[in-house]
């Protein structure tokens, strides 16, 4: 079983690395999408189908689109898309920051006693998931719902407000 897990992990990390190192910005965004698909594969391996498909739907469907639009609409022309070489000094700072964060993580992982035998994979059907969401975790769900609605309304106001009322025949 671990072979599959290792494979997925390797693929995801490789995709994420490619996303970071790519020269063409669009290739990076697409590699990012592939890494998100890798995360969905993790969920599938863990047996949580609902979360895996939700992850696929939301990240691959919507968020990658948002990132692509952001890249497209801000990019002035194609030259800006191909990022140039990273100067040495900035690369050094990047490595240092990464090392610090890595050290903290490693310390946390080392400190917690990991269970040797992997916990039995709980099979949660969609119905139970729904009941859980509506039951004990209802408050969290509603909070997220409100947050998303606010974001949506904010986007609408931003988009609608930005464009001056078009002269000439209103469609």
């Amino acid at each position, binding site marked *: 079983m671990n072979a599959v897990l290792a494979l997925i992990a390797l693929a995801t990390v490789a995709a994420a690395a490619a996303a970071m190192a790519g020269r063409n910005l669009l290739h990076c965004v697409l590699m990012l999408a592939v890494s998100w698909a890798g995360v969905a594969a993790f969920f599938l391996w863990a047996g949580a189908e609902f979360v895996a498909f939700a992850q696929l739907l939301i990240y691959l469907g919507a968020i990658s689109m948002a990132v692509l639009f952001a890249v497209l609409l801000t990019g*002035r*022309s*194609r*030259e800006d898309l191909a990022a140039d070489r990273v100067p040495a000094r900035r690369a050094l700072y990047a490595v240092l920051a990464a090392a610090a964060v890595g050290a903290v993580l490693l310390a946390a992982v080392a400190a917690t006693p990991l269970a040797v035998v992997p916990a039995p994979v709980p099979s949660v059907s969609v119905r139970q998931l729904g009941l859980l969401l509506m039951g004990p975790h209802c408050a969290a769900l509603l909070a997220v719902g409100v947050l998303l609605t606010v974001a949506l309304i904010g986007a609408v106001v931003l988009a609608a407000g930005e464009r001056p009322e*078009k*002269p*000439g*025949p209103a*469609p």
Partner: protein
Amino acid sequence: MSVSEIAPLTPSAGPTVRSVRDELHGDLLEVSMGPHHPSTHGVFRMVATLDGETVTRLKPVFGYLHRNHEKIGENTSYLSSMPYTDRLDYLCSMTNNWAYALAVERLSGQAVPERAEYLRVILAELTRLLNHTCLAGFLLQDSGASGTPLMYAFREREKILDLFESLSGSRMMCNFQRFGGCRTDATPAWLGAAASLADGYGRFLDEFEALLTGNEILMARTQGVGRLPAALAVSAGVTGPVLRASGVDYDLRKVDGYGVYPRFAFRVPLGAHGDVYDRYMVRVLEMRESIRILQEALRGIPGGPVMDPKAKIRGFRAKPGEVYSRIEGPKGEIGFYLISEGGPNPYRYRVRPPSLINLTILEDLCLGHTIADTVVILGSIDIVLGEVDR
């Protein structure tokens, strides 16, 4: 910045997406539609500068079909120019022939027998039916209906073209009118076939309107699009259904009363908004009026000769002088201006092309609309490149 100043699209490895820097709107995208474009009714090019989707500048480029028609007209005899007038607006050859024949008859003071006048009115109204049906079909084809209305329009057009073929010998290049009447006479069988076509046409129009007029998508695509104010239409010299759709009451059949039109009772439909939907509806209502004229003319056609017996075929020489005569073609006022010095061929031969003159307002109609609208607006103006470029 006019198109000529913009450097041609250099095939450099860099961005071929030509973005025209314009401080106000950021990147403007310049898209050239045509001359080889599926929806521009022939070789016609529109260079549209887009801000996102909406058109900010639209420069029509034509002349690809220029065949030097008027200079050839000066070098060939009066009779030999007649077949070339079929090639002007190749959808309506009968009305082109009539306009040219009328000009030469006015120049040489020739009388036309009664039966020929009636036959000319019948053929002109058949051509109007044919042209407006074709237009409605093309308009829908441009707005995306995958060919169905166009095929129905062409099915009916074939019936009319069969009538032209059995009368003049050719479906579209009829070369049928002569100075002083028509080349051959219409047999009673032909008149019967024309009458049955006219009676059946009303049913076809009902089916056609059921498919189109009430269609919400078509209404959404055409109402309020390409609005032509009456003042601009009159000052730009626009004529024909495009002008009447803006509410200006100007139909040469009523204004000039040429031929035997005053004898027929028919009405001239007028639009109120002057948008693409009105132009489409005015043409459909005009078709219904043409059917009434056709039925009346077919009932009232007298006997007698179709050709003025004294008319000379060979060595025809018009009296010196100049004339401008015009008729209400399906696309607008088509006129011929001739100057004759008494020789076998005219000194000056000029055609007033309604398509070209109606085309001058294309940019005014398209500003503020999207690319999809420019195609529909161009379709509603109803141009034929043979007439635009001559």
